[in-house]
């Protein structure tokens, strides 16, 4: 019988002639125990029953491991969804909302930055002028219609980044809900203004300085005359 030289490379290991240690895995044999099926049957039943009692006990005693707070223990790791919810991360981008001013009008000035930035082109805004006599007339506009198609939205957050007045935010903590028609995914201004942030507020954390009020740092219309 020829000397076994497999597994050795004569170029890199010229001196080695002995075969490297190979692990021989014995073919599983069909012993009488395996053929009888019953011992394995009982072993299998023991395994499933053990899991059953363990998991049942943890569920009944309310001790099942929290699937969100990771732990190295096994157990039931699914959550009962509508009752238990995974906490969303702080910066989770949920459904949009339009923030409000103190007088409950939208902060949005209809600059169209968001709809321009939107890669999915799912924001539609029609700008309108404030009424005659309103101090904001001629200084800024407001959205007559503000529509987001939440089904088209890719939740990239560019609209939030683009907005110069922090008027659109995605901090509602809500995910898109399933509806039964596409029409229901078209969110309009009223609905968007109704949503609150996760803190329950409809405003933003950034204070707003209305034109004409003394805290207003920028140019007013009076200064703008030339």
């Amino acid at each position, binding site marked *: 019988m020829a000397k076994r030289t497999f597994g050795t490379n004569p170029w890199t290991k010229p001196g080695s002639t002995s075969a490297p240690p190979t692990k021989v895995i014995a073919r599983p044999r069909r012993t009488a125990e395996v053929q009888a099926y*019953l011992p394995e*049957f009982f072993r*299998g*039943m023991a*395994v*499933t*029953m053990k*899991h*059953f*009692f363990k*998991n*049942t*006990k*943890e*569920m*009944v*005693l*309310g*001790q099942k*491991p*929290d*699937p*969100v*707070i*990771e*732990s*190295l*223990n*096994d*157990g*039931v*790791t*699914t*959550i*009962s969804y509508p009752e*238990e*919810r*995974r*906490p969303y*991360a*702080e910066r989770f981008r949920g459904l949009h909302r339009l923030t409000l001013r103190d007088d409950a009008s939208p902060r949005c000035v209809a600059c169209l930055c968001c709809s321009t930035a939107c890669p999915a082109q799912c924001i539609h805004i029609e700008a309108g002028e404030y009424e005659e006599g309103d101090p904001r007339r001629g200084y800024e506009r407001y959205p007559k219609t503000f529509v987001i198609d939440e089904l088209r939205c890719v939740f990239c957050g560019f609209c939030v980044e683009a907005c110069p007045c922090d008027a659109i935010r995605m901090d509602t903590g809500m995910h898109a809900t399933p509806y039964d028609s596409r029409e229901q995914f078209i969110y309009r201004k009223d609905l968007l203004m109704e949503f609150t942030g996760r803190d329950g507020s409809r405003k933003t954390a950034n204070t707003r300085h209305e034109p004409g009020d003394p805290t207003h740092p920028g140019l007013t219309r009076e200064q703008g005359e030339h």
Partner: protein
Amino acid sequence: MSLVELVLTVVKILIIVMFFLNMAALSTWADRRQGAMVQDRVGPNRAVVPLPNMVARGIVLLPPALFGVLSIFTSLGEVTGRLALERTTVNVQLAIFVTWLSLLVLCAKVRSGGAINRAERVFEDVDPRSIFFAGLGVHALGLVAMRFVTPQGAPMAAKITGFVLGAIFLIVGFYATSRVPEGPIPLRLAGTLHALADSIKMIWKEDFIPKNGDKVLHGLAPILTVFSAVVVAAVLPFGNDLCFADGNRNGTLDFSDLGNLVATVPATGQCTGFRVPLQIADLNVGILYVFAMTGTGIIGAAIAGWASDNKFALLGGLRAASQMVSYEVAMGLSLVGLFLVYSTVRMGEMSAWQGQHAWGIFVQPVGFFLFLAAVCAETKRVPFDQPEGESEIVAGYFLEYSGFKWGMFMTGEYIELVFSSALLVALFFGGYNLPFLHPDGLTVAFGDTVLFQYKMTHLAVSVISVLAFFGKTILVTWVQVFFRWTLPRFRYDQLMKLGWTKLLPLAIANMMVTAVIVVALRNAGPAAESWLKLLGDISQGLVAVLTLAGTVALVVGLLEPVERHKFLVTSSARFAAALGGVKPTAQEA
């Protein structure tokens, strides 16, 4: 057949059918639920019925109030003798049970929802486990205290304890009702409503019949399946034979005699009055009737496959038919050894024999495993579920069924499961008998040495025997469901080989060996007979000890608190931990 016998039969049929239908629905749920608990999923527990507040309060109040009033009213009547003693025992034990159970529930409620008054604040620091163990201790004390009740004092004691029990029921009912929170109450019942919701859904779904299918046969097949699954239950003995005295001495059983259940029956079960077996039909062919009727189930599956005009369905039907025909043979032959030992094929006599001697599993262990395998194949459940193998032939013979016809196949399958468990109990697990429970009460005896004796009335023994039968059936069903979550499916050729080349020869060999042993023992004389009696008693003792040990181990294991260490690995886990995870309650209970 007289009118009273007819009425009794109808009542028995109702009991059996209600049990099987309810168990079928429950085991559909239990099947999924057990799988979930084995595989670390939550499983079906979603179906919720929001109950109006008044209805919820009514549901909480009615049963305890009813039981309370019932207990007080029954205590108004006079009882004497052993019945009074028995009633006192039951009253005391029930009162203790209700007390600790409601305290336990209250304790859990206080710990999860907070106390609302000073009395409840006591429970804030109490471990629910100590309530349970204290309850067990008081149960034992109650049993000991019964020794001090004299026969003269028994009627009075029965009265007083009855009133106390009623009062406890009423207090618990009213307090629980006051604790029902405001607003609509979600009724979930651990997800059992899921089965109900499913069946309601199935009624409204479209009943689809394939265009080229056979309309008549397509409708007939599910009916045949359910029919064969239900009618087999007619020969199941589900309790002790009842014995009625002939009250008006007219020599026939009539309605007025039904109130005269005899007080006690001798240990042999001899009945001097009218004997009413708790069995719908005591056929002389007994178990052969079961074989005949399960045989018609094959037709249902085969017709379903044929009438569906679908190749997968046809394959499934073929598989079902050939599998069931093959295993019918092994199923019948594996029981012949049992017939030789019991020397009868009547189901009632088989159960009685097991009560007097030893359970079938001890006299025919090989026959038991052969029969178990064959019966699993007959019910077409895992690991023998090739007729509906999802991975190859989609759903097999009921592929083209929808709506309630599909529901009938499903119900039929689960009724068969429950029935096969009942059959296993009746043939191998002592039927309605419990170890050492004889028609005249509890007698722990090995051979001729009597260790302990406690006399009971006929009524008590009969109630216990019925409960024992249904309880054992539920337990065996539960174990059978585990097969599904444990065993992988066989290949079809393996299945056929197992049936014809393993089970069949083994069954024949078992039959021959049994025959030789039975003949040898019959001719061995009285000495061997007394030894056999002792062995039988030992087997009964073994069952009793194992059952007790298993129960204790289970309770202790389930009550032990879980030790758990938390590791927060990723940043998202840390964030979730800061928000409190998903669970409203603490991890350690």
